[in-house]
């Protein structure tokens, strides 16, 4: 207690030191705790379901090209019938409805779920009841369970809604329940849940992979046992259904890992980056403490002379540093509350479990432990150094109680060198990520995203249930959208890159056998002017035409990669392919267009096929509007145009294509942004560190500098003297940083787009920046040294 009391007294005594140290620690610890909160919430905290460690993700694989593949409903029902490892095996697929008769028509996101879905999660509706097995059959599925958020938003949280009818796509659904607050299926928000009600044909479909399955393992079954059993079942199904199942396997992953696994490298990288920041903060505070210890050497000598053992002195100084660190840690914890909210605000939309992120007790424990470790880390060196004081000298009247020993000076220099090195590593990391991001931004997606809007629409299944009805709506909407001022072209597709939709389908080439390793292709049903509106170049043959309708010749356009891969030495135009596994429908290849990236700019474009919308229409459609630049007020005009065709038709979204592409780069942007912020803080801390060491050094050398000036040293000489001293530290720090930076560059190169481990331009830029900052930080002490009054300086020596 006595040591703690003295520690507080010391902090009060030097408010400037205390403020700088606390701010530095709060920044370092706060950043660490904020990122740790995200890591802890996303990666470490169990999923919010009972016995969640027994939940597994079950997906198909088709190695080597598809390590993860959607599940065909036939497969799901076969697994369910044949496996014994699961307490429950559930399946879901996303869908959407148009809600009518409850105010403004609205698009409602839905999950079509098997009746055992909520039981698999171990969660029951908060209000009402769960689906029955009977309701999960075709014709009996007009029941709905609402999500808590949708219930609140749409029905004001009224419990009487349970038992009432609501209308989706013109069909009446009985509301039977409301799920608990914050309940999410596989971390995906959904407004409502309706029964999947697979038909007999669905249950036999082993070729269309469009559902997601997950299960709850029996309590006595291990992951390995379930994997072994499912491998046997998958092999059996491969033999049983060779046309559709050959080469397919099953992958079982703990659900937590499946949900968050792909975010792990990014989050751990960021945790490492803030760890570096904390190292810099620790080095800075250690330096401050070393300076203060020099000033306190007389006090330490007195204590030693009076009988304080080395251990006792170390204990007292460590108590002081730990008290300081705990206070800094507390401030950091407060800062982390705000920082975590900021992180969530800037987090990419696809960051898993983002709604579960908060600074919890585990984060508080982390902050406490981190503060304790940090306090010991930055306190131990000055504490041990304090025991190396020459007592006789320190206790003398006018003794060198306040001067700095060579060892301590070297140590302070070493700490600054380490700070510069770590700062350089962070700066290099930020520089590399910025380069990667800029390169990624410059990657052509294969179409022109500027001056283009995407309008997403899910057509009512009731009203637009047939291809003719769908095609009719699309034609009318295109006509109205095309008439809008400033709109140059309008295309439509049931799948638009970076926006949504799309499927991967198997295909056959006429005259060639289908092998198990035949690659599938991404399928797009597009209108004739889609390529024009997207500005996708036609490389050979022709684009689709208005005359390519349902009754005309069945045609298809393929992409360049497909032409090269499958028709390398021949002209693909005029060849015929059949897309899909249902009845053979031969389509003539009439053109080859440029490759288009679908999900990410850094992906290799898949094989792509484009069929006329009239020949393969869908109830999900995206209109692409090519516009003259700077069209103001277009979204309301688009809305009016669509509602002029059908006033009850909701519009899911109207967004520029650029925004969709930007969304696809959100993770890279997030990493880059945080790295840049961290390196910015790091460089400020390093500058403070360099300034502190140089300012202290100048103060210590005042006498010597005074003598030099008295002997006629010009100001430039003194200036150079100090700058050279700082320069040595910078050179050493930069050298060390470059070595460590190489290791980080290797790691980043494996994670981010188009990065090489050796990027001279980035490294040169970083070194120049750091050198300039170091020079600026050293300049003030240098100028102060050049202005030393020799008389005063020599008197104070």
């Amino acid at each position, binding site marked *: 207690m006595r040591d703690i009391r003295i520690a507080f007294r010391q902090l009060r005594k030097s408010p400037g030191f205390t403020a700088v140290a606390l701010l530095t620690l709060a920044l370092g610890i706060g950043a660490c705790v904020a990122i740790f909160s995200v890591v802890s919430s996303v990666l470490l905290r169990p999923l919010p379901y009972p016995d969640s460690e027994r939940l597994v993700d079950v997906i198909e694989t088709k190695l080597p090209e598809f390590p993860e593949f959607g599940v065909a409903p036939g497969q799901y029902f076969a697994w369910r019938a044949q496996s014994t490892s699961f307490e429950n095996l559930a399946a879901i697929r996303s869908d959407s409805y148009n809600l009518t008769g409850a105010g403004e028509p609205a698009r409602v996101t839905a999950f079509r779920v098997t009746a055992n879905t909520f039981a698999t999660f171990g969660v029951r509706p908060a209000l009402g009841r769960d689906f029955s097995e009977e309701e999960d059959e075709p014709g009996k599925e007009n029941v709905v369970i609402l999500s808590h958020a949708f219930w609140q938003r749409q029905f004001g949280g009224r419990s009487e809604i349970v038992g009432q009818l609501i209308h989706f796509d013109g069909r009446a659904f009985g509301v039977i329940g409301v799920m608990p607050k914050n309940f999410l299926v596989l971390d995906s928000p959904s407004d409502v849940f309706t029964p999947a009600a697979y038909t007999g044909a669905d249950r036999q479909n082993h070729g269309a992979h469009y559902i997601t399955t997950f299960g709850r393992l029996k309590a006595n079954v291990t992951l390995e046992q379930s994997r072994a059993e499912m491998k046997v079942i998958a092999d059996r199904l491969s033999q049983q259904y060779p046309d559709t199942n050959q080469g397919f396997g099953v992958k079982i992953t703990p659900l937590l890992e499946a949900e968050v696994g792909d975010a792990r490298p990014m989050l751990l990288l960021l945790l490492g980056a803030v760890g570096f920041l904390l190292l810099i903060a620790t080095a800075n505070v250690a330096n401050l403490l070393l300076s203060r210890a020099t000033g306190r050497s007389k006090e330490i*000598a007195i204590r030693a002379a*009076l*009988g304080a*053992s080395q251990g006792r002195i170390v204990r007292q100084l460590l108590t002081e540093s730990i008290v300081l660190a705990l206070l800094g840690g507390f401030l950091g914890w407060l800062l982390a509350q705000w920082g975590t909210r900021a992180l969530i605000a800037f987090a990419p939309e696809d960051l898993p479990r983002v709604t579960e992120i908060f600074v919890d007790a585990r984060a508080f424990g982390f902050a406490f432990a981190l503060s304790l470790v940090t306090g010991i880390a930055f306190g131990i060196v000055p504490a041990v150094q304090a025991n190396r004081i020459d007592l*006789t000298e320190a206790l003398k009247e006018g003794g060198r109680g306040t001067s700095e020993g060579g060892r301590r000076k070297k140590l302070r220099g070493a700490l600054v060198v380490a700070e510069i090195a770590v700062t350089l590593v962070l700066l290099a990391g930020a520089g590399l990520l910025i380069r990667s991001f800029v390169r990624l931004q410059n990657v052509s997606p294969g179409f022109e995203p500027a001056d283009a809007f995407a309008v997403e629409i899910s057509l009512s299944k009731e009203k637009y249930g047939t291809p003719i009805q769908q095609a009719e709506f699309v034609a009318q909407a295109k006509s109205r959208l095309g008439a809008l001022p400033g709109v140059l072209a309008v295309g439509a597709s049931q799948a638009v890159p970076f926006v949504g939709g799309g499927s991967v389908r198997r295909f056959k080439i006429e005259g060639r056998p289908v092998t198990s390793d035949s690659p599938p292709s991404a399928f797009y049903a597009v209108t004739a002017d889609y390529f024009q509106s997207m500005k996708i170049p036609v490389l050979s043959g022709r684009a689709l035409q208005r005359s390519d309708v349902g009754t005309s010749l069945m045609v298809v356009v393929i992409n360049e990669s497909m032409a090269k891969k499958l028709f390398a030495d021949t002209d693909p135009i005029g060849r015929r392919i059949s897309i899909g596994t249902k009845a053979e429908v031969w389509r003539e290849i009439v053109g080859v267009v440029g490759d288009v990236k679908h999900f990410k700019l850094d992906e290799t474009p898949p094989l792509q096929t484009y069929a006329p919308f009239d020949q393969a229409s869908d109830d999900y459609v995206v209109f692409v509007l090519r516009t003259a630049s700077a069209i103001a007020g277009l979204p309301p005009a688009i809305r009016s145009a669509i509602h002029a065709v059908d006033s009850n038709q909701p519009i899911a979204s109207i967004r520029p294509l650029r925004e969709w592409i930007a969304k696809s780069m959100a993770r890279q942007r997030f990493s880059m942004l945080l790295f840049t912020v961290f390196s910015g803080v790091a460089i400020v801390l390093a500058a403070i560190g360099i300034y502190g060491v140089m300012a202290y050094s100048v103060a210590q050398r005042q006498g010597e500098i005074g003598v030099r000036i008295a002997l006629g040293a010009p100001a430039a000489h003194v200036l150079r003297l100090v700058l050279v001293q700082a320069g040595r530290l910078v050179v050493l720090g930069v050298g060390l940083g470059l070595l460590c930076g190489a290791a980080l560059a290797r790691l980043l190169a494996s994670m981010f787009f188009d990065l090489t481990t050796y990027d001279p331009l980035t490294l040169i830029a970083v070194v120049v920046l750091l050198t300039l900052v170091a020079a600026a930080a050293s300049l003030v002490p240098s100028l102060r040294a050049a202005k030393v009054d020799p008389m005063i300086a020599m008197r104070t020596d």
Partner: protein
Amino acid sequence: MGNGEVIIRMEGVGKVFLTEELETHALSDIHLSIGKGEFVSMEGPSGSGKTTLLSILGALDTPSTGNYQFAGENVAALRARERTLLRNQKVGFIFQSFNLIGDLTVFENVELPLTYRDMPASERRQRVEKALERVGMNRRARHVPAQLSGGQQQRVAVARAVAGDPLVLLADEPTGNLDSSNGDAVMGLLRELHAEGATICMVTHNPDYAKQASRSIHLFDGRLVNESGIAHRTFPVANASA
């Protein structure tokens, strides 16, 4: 006023400071015995080795050569921890610049060496109050050093030195930073303590104060050159626990 027991015995003690280029002999061949209850003053010009000798006497430093026994213990053979214990329990220091800790109150300063003995708080309080009363500073117990005059600070330093009942009081120019009246007052205190049986070894430049000691030794160039007062003699070695 020695009673015959030797507290300090030095035989051929020397101290050499080594720097990168230089070997400095701060003390050479010191033979010195101080008996219990003696008041010894040490004189000599600057750089003669007085402070170095006092540091070795107080176990702040160790001799490079020779044999030094403090209350029967061979100080040169003691480990740092044992020397710390010796300083804490058997030596009381009074410095020229008082060396009070500015952040601590008068009470806490005097209490400080006792806290290192892990003495119970009640006993500490008793001893501190007694020591402060002894030097007339008990009414200033809650003050911090900056609120005291130089003379008052040195009286507090004396209280701190005597609070632990040490075998020896080592005073390094205790009046050096004081005006004559305060210097006289501190010397008066030391005389009183000596009269009560304390063993005191004091470095001073002031011949008048040196005369108040029962014995005076002179150092020059690191050597003991002259001794006045009680003749140099050998005392029987005191019990280590005395």
